[in-house]
C-alpha cells in the first residue's frame, strides 16, 4: 500500500515540530480521541480533519469508478474494500477517497474504526458511539451524517457477508 503518513499531535509533540510517523501508519481511534480532546473548538477539529484528509492515501484513478461510488454524499466518494486473509485471521481492508478534504478527514475516522478489523470486529464496532465521543454527531450536517452512515452500512454489509462466507467455508 502506498500510504501517506498522517501527522498526529502525538507524533508532532514527540519530534518538536516535525512529523515523523511512518508512511504506512494510519491514525488509531485512541490517537483521534486524544487529538480531539486537545483541540479546543469545533473549527480546530475541522482543521485537523482537513489536514488528515489532505494526507489520506489516494485511490488510483481506475479505482475511482462508478461501481465504487458511495451515493448520498454531497461530494464524490469512492470506497474500495477487500478481505485480506494473509494474516492469522481474515481482516477487512478499507480504502476510500473523496474529492473533498473534509470528507477525507471523516474517512480517516472511518478507517480508524474499520480498517484492518476482522468481520466480527467490524460488526461489533459502535460507530454511532464513536461519532458521539468525537462530537461528530452534534456537528455534522445531516447530509454528511447520511453520507457517513451510507459508508458504515456498506462496510457492515460486507462484514456480514464475509462472516457468512467464512462460516460456510468452515463447514
Amino acid at each position, binding site marked *: 500500500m502506498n500510504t501517506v503518513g498522517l501527522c498526529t499531535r502525538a507524533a508532532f509533540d514527540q519530534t518538536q515540530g516535525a512529523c515523523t510517523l511512518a508512511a504506512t501508519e494510519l491514525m488509531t481511534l485512541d490517537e483521534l480521541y486524544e487529538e480531539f480532546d486537545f483541540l479546543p473548538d469545533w473549527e480546530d477539529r475541522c482543521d485537523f480533519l482537513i489536514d488528515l484528509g489532505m494526507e489520506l492515501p489516494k485511490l488510483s484513478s481506475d479505482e475511482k469508478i462508478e461501481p465504487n461510488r458511495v*451515493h*448520498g454524499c*454531497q461530494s464524490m466518494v469512492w470506497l474500495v474494500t477487500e478481505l485480506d486473509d494473509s494474516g492469522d485471521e481474515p481482516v477487512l481492508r478499507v480504502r476510500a477517497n473523496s474529492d473533498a478534504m473534509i470528507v477525507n478527514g471523516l474517512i480517516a475516522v472511518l478507517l480508524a474504526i474499520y480498517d484492518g478489523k476482522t468481520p466480527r470486529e467490524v460488526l461489533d464496532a459502535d460507530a454511532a458511539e464513536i461519532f458521539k465521543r468525537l462530537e461528530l454527531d452534534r456537528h455534522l*450536517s*445531516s*447530509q*454528511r451524517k447520511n453520507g457517513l452512515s451510507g459508508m458504515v452500512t456498506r462496510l457492515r454489509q460486507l462484514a456480514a457477508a464475509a462472516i457468512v462466507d467464512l462460516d460456510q467455508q468452515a463447514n
Partner: protein
Amino acid sequence: MKHLSETVLDVRNQFPIFDHPLPKGQPVTFLDTAASAQKPQTVIDREREVCERYYANAYRGVYRFGAMVDEELEASREAVRKLLGAESRDELAFTAGATMSLNVIANGWGRRHLQPGDEILLSVLEHHANFVPWQQVVAATGAKLRFIPLTPAGELDLSDPELFNNRTRIVAVTGMSNVLGTLPPLAELSQRAHAVGAILVVDAAQSLPHGPIDVVATGIDFLACSGHKLYGPTGVGILYGRKELLAETDPLIFGGHMIDQVHQDHSTWADPPARFEAGTLPIVQAIALRPALEFMESVGYEAMHAHELELTQAAHAQLAEIPGIQIYGPPPERKGSIVSFTMEGAAAEDIAHLLDRKGVFVRHGHHCTMPLHTWLGVPATVRASFGVYNNLDDVQRLADALRYVRQRLKLDT
C-alpha cells in the same frame, strides 16, 4: 359559576389572541378550536426568532444558518417522534398538513398495494380528507370501500362479522370525529385489522390535540396530523409510517431533496423521510411545531383532558336547558371536547351569524363530512369545540348567545 384554577388562567394568558377585546368590548369567545387552534406566545416567538436570527433553506447548506435550521428541524422531528412513541425519526415526514399526509398514504401505499376486489374499511365519521383520497384510489385500483356503520349515538358499530374479512387490506379511521367527538377504539381496530392482514391508518388530526397516541403500543401503521390543530403553525403537518411500510410507499410529490439520482430517462428516490419531503419544507413552521408540543406537554395531558371534559359537560348541561337544541354524538365522557348541535327552526348559518354578534365564534355547515351529515339527516350542524384555553365563562356566553338567537329569530313567540 365555578372558578377556574389558577393553572387554567395561566394557560389562557399564554395566548395573546385573548389579550384584546373585540371592537364592541366583548371578550373573544373562540369555540372553533377543532377547525384550528390559537397559538401560544412561544410558537409565535419561535417563528419570529428563526426568521430574525438564523433563517436559511433546510438540508442544503453547510453554512452556519443552514446547520442551525437543520438541527432545529431534527429537534422538532424528534419531539414528534416522542409524542407518537415512534421507533425512529426516519418514520416521520413533514408535510403541508394532515390532508397531504393522507393523500400520500392513500396514493403512495394504497395504489401500489391494492388489487381489484380488495377492501378499504372506513367509518361513516370520516372527514373528506380521509375519504375522498380513498375514493380516488378505489376508482384507480378496482378496490372497494366498505363502511363501518354507526350506533345511534354515533359510535362505531363493529358487530358485523363481515366488516373485517380476508379482502380487507386497509382500515382507515379518524382518531376522533371532528363533528361528533366520537373516539373510535383504535387498539381494537388495530387488532382486528392486523388479524386479517390489513394495515391501520389513523387520521389523528382531531385526536392528537387532546393527547398523545402511542403508535407502537396502539399498533398504528400510518398516521396523519396537522400542526395548526396542535396549537402550532399553519402550513405544516406530519406523516407517520412504520418503517417497513414507508419503505414500500411511493412518493406523491416529485422534486428537489426527495430524489437519489436523476437521469434524463429515469430517477430514483431518497430513503424516507426525505422521499416524502419534496421541495422546500415549511421550514419555519416545522421548527415552531416543537414549542407547540412543548406547550401541550407543559399543560399536561391529564390536566388538559380533565379541563376539556369539564367544559364539554358544562356545555351539554347548559344547552340542554335551551329549547329546540339537539346535540349529536356520544355523551361527554365518551367523546372529545366537541359539541355539535342543531336548533329547531333556526338554520345553522343564522345561528353562527348571530352568535358572532355576541363574540361567540363557532362553525357551521357540514364540517367536511357530507356522508356523516347524510347519516345524521341534517344538511348542517353548528359546532362548538373547546381548546385548552377555553373556560366556563365561554360556555356561559355560548348559552346566553343561543338564547339571544331564539329571541332574534322569534322562535319563542
